[in-house]
Structures are given as structure tokens and as C-alpha cells.
């Protein structure tokens, strides 16, 4: 009798354990590879960007320093090493938080905008830097006499690159805090703030900002703000109109922090992820001219969020959403079909004691798997951390790198992978998360039994190019004609 009861108990436990994994997903998603970062001392860092700063064809992580040197971490001989030593780039004395790179002068090289802030709100003492390169020397465009009258002397947070006219000439949207938003472009060889002319010079608590094909075939902007409504800036022939209220993304009594564009439904359009500081996180999908928040209870649970990233870390063909929280454990969700968020319990990258302030992804070692670099700081100096997903042997990838007609990464363009299983759009990141910017590559993992691949690139001018007969496990560079 007793043995029979034990048998029943076993059966029950087997059945129960078969069903249990529906909710509690796999363990050990990431492995910690921080040991490959050389000279990884405790420091105060914020935003991280990814660009090819030395124009060698490989991207580097650009890590800001807040009273610490800015870094350009390149992958050399299996290690991540700082490759820039010039003072104007390192800028040890300034407090840099936001960073984004893009080609503002149409020479194919991405200038780097460093947003410095030495006060929480309002007027600041030290201005921002816009780093360019000439004859292998880095210099600050803002230090040129002709540009001094347009310095940004307002506290700010994030920056994003915007090709508002779709002609490859990028401008930089600077999300200021307690002062007007700025929008820098080069006009007559001079850096000019065009925010007022473009209806962008609003005063708010600017926090996070993204740009891409959100509503139109041109670069639209979504800005997640604090102590004020978010902006959804619709591009009307290069000028902007705030339609956040109409599209229901104004979220006026929450405090925006991190944001990213993501094709949440795998339907070939970019929707919006918006993380709110100690508030409900949003997964906005456009339905009938309004954005609807489809985040479930696990996803929207309030946290001390900073950066939010949408990327396929484990190359299974489904994107994950990484939420970087400060002084609170990080979170990871898989976006399943129909926008169902499934929490993946983290061990590595959980960082229960981590003071995360920024994060970015890039395939820095060119092995077809993304690396995740997390920066830390604010109230505690901590080293950088680097993670990589434990990828199943059979998982494959496809990476698409669109280059515009000037030879620069086409930030703000949209790449769509079309196959027998999905129509999956990704933005070529113009700036996202909180204070950060991801690699300018659309990275796809490949699903089981997926075939018939076709790639669509929607450039920043709205025109589309298609590429067929795609072989997987490679990075394809597509040049704008």
C-alpha cells in the first residue's frame, strides 16, 4: 500500500515538473566574460555606444566616464582594450553621461557626441563634446571658434542621431533636463542648434530618446521624459509634431528612463519599449492609430530601471528584452509570438549588487553572438561587466549592416528579415536604452526550420531595397545606392 502511494507521488511529481517549466524558464542564460576586459577598475560610468572609432572595420564599445576617462574598448587578441589615449577623448575632468555616434558631416566617419553634465537640472558649467577625427587626430568640434556660440550649457541626459531629411546628413537630438531640447546639425560648416525651427525646443526633464521609423517613412523620435509627458515626434517633411497624446504614449504621470524600438509582434514594424523609473514598464504596440500597452504583469512590474535593450542574445530567432536596473537585480524577458513576454531567470547578469547605469550590445568579437556590456556607477564605483549568452550549438545567425551613400552606418534605417516564419524588423540603432546606443547592425538569430530568407532595408529616406537568396551565418553589408 505504502509503495503504491509512493508511486502515485512520483507520477504526480513527474507530471508537475513537466508543466512547471511553462513559467520558470531556463537557468544560466548568460555567461560572465568580464575577465576579457583589461584594466577593468572600479569607476563611475554611464552611457555606452558602439561605433568604429578607429575606422578599421570593427566596432568598439565607447564607454563614458563620469569624472573618469572615456574609453574606446576594442577587441584585440581575445581581450577588450582601450585603444584611444588622446586627452580630448579621455576627458578625465568632465562628467560624461550620454553618448551617441553618427556621421554629421557626410564623410563616412561617425562623430561622437559626448553629453557632459555637472548638475542635475538647468545650467551647467562644462559643455558637451562632439569628437571628430582628422589625420588620425581626434578633436572637439565644439572647441572651434565658430561653434562656441552654440555650446550646450544645459544639464542633459541622452542623445540620439536623427537623419530627419533622409539625406544621410545626421543631426543630434539632445535630451536636456530643465532647459530646452537641442537639435544640432552642421549648416554652412558650423554647428547650429535648429531645435526652435524644427519645433523641438521644449523644456522638460529629458531622459531617454530613440529615433527610427516609428510612424512615418522618415526618422520619427520618441522621447521618454521625467516630470512631464513623453514626446512622440512625428516627422513631417523634416519638421516635427508632438503626437504623444493622440497615440497614447504620453504617460504623463510616470517618469521615463530607458526606451528602445522593438518589433514586439514580429510583424514587420517597429514598436516602442519604455521603462519607467519605479513605474509600470510599457510595451507599446500600434493598433488602429493608437499604441496599446501589452506588457504583462511580470514585464511591467515597477523597478529602478535604467537601460532597456531588445536583442536576440541566444540566436534562437526570438528577441529578448534586457532591463538594466540600478541597485536592484536586472531582468530578462523573451518575446514569444503574439508579444507574449516570458521571464528568463538570470544568474549571471543578475547583478543583485550592481549599480547599472548603462548597457549596450555588439558582436564585438565577430563570432555571430552578441556581447552585452554593462556599465555601473552613479553612487558606487564598480567595474564594467561583459556577458554573452550560452548559445545552443545548432543556433545560427544573420547580421545585416546597412551603409548609407556616404559610407557611414545607416542609423535610423529599418532592416526587415522576411522568411517562411516571420517578418521581423529591427532598427539600425540611432541611440536607445538610457544614455546609450547599440551597434549599427541588425542581428538575427535563426529559428528552427526557418528558410526562404529575404532582406528588406528601408533607408532613412523611406526607400526600400531588397536582397534575396541569403546565406545564413554571415554579416551582410548592404550599401545604399
Amino acid at each position: 500500500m505504502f509503495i503504491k502511494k509512493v508511486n502515485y507521488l512520483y507520477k504526480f511529481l513527474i507530471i508537475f515538473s513537466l508543466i512547471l517549466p511553462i513559467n520558470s524558464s531556463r537557468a544560466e542564460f548568460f555567461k560572465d566574460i568580464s575577465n576579457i576586459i583589461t584594466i577593468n577598475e572600479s569607476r563611475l560610468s554611464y552611457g555606452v555606444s558602439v561605433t568604429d572609432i578607429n575606422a578599421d572595420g570593427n566596432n568598439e564599445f565607447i564607454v563614458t566616464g563620469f569624472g573618469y576617462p572615456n574609453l574606446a574598448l576594442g577587441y584585440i587578441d581575445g581581450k577588450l582594450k582601450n585603444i584611444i589615449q588622446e586627452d580630448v577623448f579621455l576627458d578625465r575632468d568632465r562628467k560624461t553621461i550620454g553618448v551617441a555616434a553618427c556621421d554629421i558631416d557626410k564623410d563616412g566617419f561617425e562623430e561622437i557626441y559626448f553629453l557632459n553634465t555637472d548638475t542635475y537640472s538647468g545650467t551647467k558649467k562644462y559643455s558637451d563634446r562632439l569628437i571628430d577625427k582628422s589625420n588620425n587626430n581626434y578633436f572637439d568640434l565644439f572647441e572651434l571658434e565658430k561653434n562656441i556660440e552654440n555650446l550646450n550649457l544645459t544639464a542633459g541626459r541622452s542623445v540620439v542621431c536623427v537623419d530627419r531629411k533622409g539625406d544621410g546628413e545626421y543631426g543630434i537630438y539632445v535630451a536636456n533636463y530643465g532647459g530646452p531640447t537641442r537639435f544640432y546639425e552642421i549648416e554652412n560648416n558650423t554647428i547650429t542648434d535648429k531645435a526652435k525651427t524644427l519645433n523641438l525646443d521644449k523644456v522638460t526633464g529629458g531622459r531617454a530618446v530613440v529615433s527610427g521609423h516609428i510612424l512615418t517613412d522618415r526618422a520619427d523620435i520618441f522621447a521618454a521624459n521625467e516630470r512631464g509627458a513623453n514626446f512622440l515626434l512625428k516627422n513631417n517633411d523634416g519638421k516635427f509634431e508632438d503626437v504623444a497624446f493622440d497615440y497614447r504614449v504620453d504617460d504623463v504621470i510616470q517618469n521615463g528612463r530607458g526606451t528602445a524600438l522593438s518589433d514586439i509582434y514580429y510583424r514587420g514594424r517597429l514598436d516602442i519599449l519604455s521603462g519607467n523609473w519605479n513605474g509600470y514598464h510599457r510595451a507599446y504596440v500600434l493598433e488602429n492609430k493608437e499604441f496599446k500597452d501589452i506588457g504583462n504583469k511580470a514585464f511591467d512590474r515597477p523597478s529602478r530601471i535604467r537601460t532597456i535593450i531588445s536583442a536576440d542574445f541566444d540566436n534562437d530567432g526570438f528577441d529578448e528584452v534586457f532591463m538594466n536596473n540600478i541597485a536592484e537585480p536586472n531582468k530578462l524577458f523573451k518575446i514569444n509570438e503574439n508579444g507574449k513576454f516570458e521571464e528568463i531567470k538570470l544568474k549571471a547578469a543578475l547583478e543583485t549588487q550592481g549599480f547599472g547605469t548603462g548597457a549596450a550590445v555588439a558582436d564585438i568579437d565577430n563570432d555571430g553572438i552578441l556581447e552585452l556590456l554593462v556599465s555601473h556607477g552613479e553612487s558606487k564605483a564598480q567595474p564594467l561587466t561583459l556577458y554573452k549568452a550560452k548559445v545552443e550549438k545548432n543556433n545560427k545567425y544573420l547580421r545585416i549592416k546597412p551603409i548609407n551613400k556616404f559610407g557611414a552606418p545607416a542609423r535610423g534605417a529599418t532592416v526587415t528579415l522576411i522568411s517562411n516564419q516571420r517578418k521581423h524588423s529591427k532598427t539600425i540603432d540611432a541611440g536607445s536604452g538610457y544614455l546609450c546606443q547599440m551597434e549599427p547592425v541588425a542581428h538575427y538569430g535563426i529559428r528552427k526550420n526557418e528558410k526562404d530568407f529575404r532582406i528588406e532595408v528601408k533607408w532613412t529616406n523611406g526607400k526600400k531595397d531588397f536582397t534575396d537568396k541569403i546565406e545564413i551565418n554571415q554579416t551582410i553589408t548592404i550599401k545604399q545606392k
Partner: protein
Amino acid sequence: MKKILVKCLLLLAILFQIEVIAEEKNYHKELITDWSRIFPDKNRNAAGPKFFKYIIDKENTYKDFIEYNKLFCAVSGSLIDPDSDSEFLFLKESKSNNKICGNYYRCCVPCSCDVMKYSEVQKMKYKFIDGSREFYVITIKNPCNKNDFPNRVNKEYFCDGKKINNDQVYNLNNRIVIGLLHNGRTCKNDDIDLVKNHQITGRYCELRNNTPLEELDAGMGDIFIKLAR
């Protein structure tokens, strides 16, 4: 017998999963999402009636209606954190002058005193998607004739000229409904003793409600008093 037992266990396990997976409605999140719809001019001073009207106009079950009404302060118009405690208090019923006891969800202590002094309750019947229910609502008299209508309150929310604006707020017998008295019922003697001897609804409210208005400087309730007195 064995098969039946295994099937039962399987069913139990599935039911457990369904319960875990099922998404509960997040009332607080919905109010946050729609806040700019409820208050297009961003002024929520004393605008509890706007919340009440917004909630009752939704397609609700009775449970939804109850839960939504726990999440704003009828006096100040502030949102209240989920799982906040309520105050047990009594209010005068308009028709009978009886004391009606119940629970009031408030943002801060002074609002409990203000609602007790300056508002009344009425019984209201309403048809929800799961049937008709009766409950007590908290009301204030029509403020639209006031010469000293408080300037920090958006008059258009409440008034259409000298009449109550029925498009913006809920009008019950020419009084504005500002919120719900939860678990409302005729007070027993013990209930009244409990309220009168309570640290807040007793001693503190007596002090507050005997302080001249010009000397009150606590909370948004002061604006409400000017509206409701």
C-alpha cells in the same frame, strides 16, 4: 482507480499553471495610462468626481467598479497606491440624516476629516455588466452657483453655467458624486464609538474641523473645502 487518480493530479497541475499564467486586471496601471484622458488640462485639484465619472462610464463588472474606486482620493483627486489602507468613518445620508458607516480610501489623513464634514452619502443603483447593484456614493452639493468657486479647480470639469456638467461628472439628485463609500451600511452604536474614539477620525478630525479655513494649510483638502462647503 489509478488512472483516475493520475488524471486528477494532471488536472490539478494544469489548473495550478492556469492560475499562475492568468493575468489579473491592473486597475492602477489603467488609471495611470488614462490619466491624461481624465485630466486633459493636467489639473486634478479636487477632481475626484472626474475619476468617478470616468470609472462608471467604463464597461465594468461590479468588482472592477469597486477596485477602481479604491485607487483615488475623492477629496484631493490624487491617485492612491494599490493596497493602501482605508479609513473607517461615517457620513450623513442626504435623505434620512442617518449616519452611514463605511471605508474611505484617501491619499492623506486630512481628507478623511474633510469628507466627513463637507460631504454626504446617497444610495445609488447602477447596472454593471454582471448585474445591478446598490451602493453608497459620496456627494457634494452643486458648487456652480458659488461666487467664491476656488480658482485652483477647473470649473469646467464641474459646471455648465450654474448647472452641474453632466458630461464631465456624475449628477445624482442635483449633487455631484465624488467617490464611493466602500462597504457602506447604517452605523451601529459601536461603529460610531469606534470612529469618534479613533486617533484620526476622532481626535485629529475634531481639531481640524474646528480650525478656521484660513488657518488650514494641510493638503489639497483645503481646495476641496472651498468647493464643497
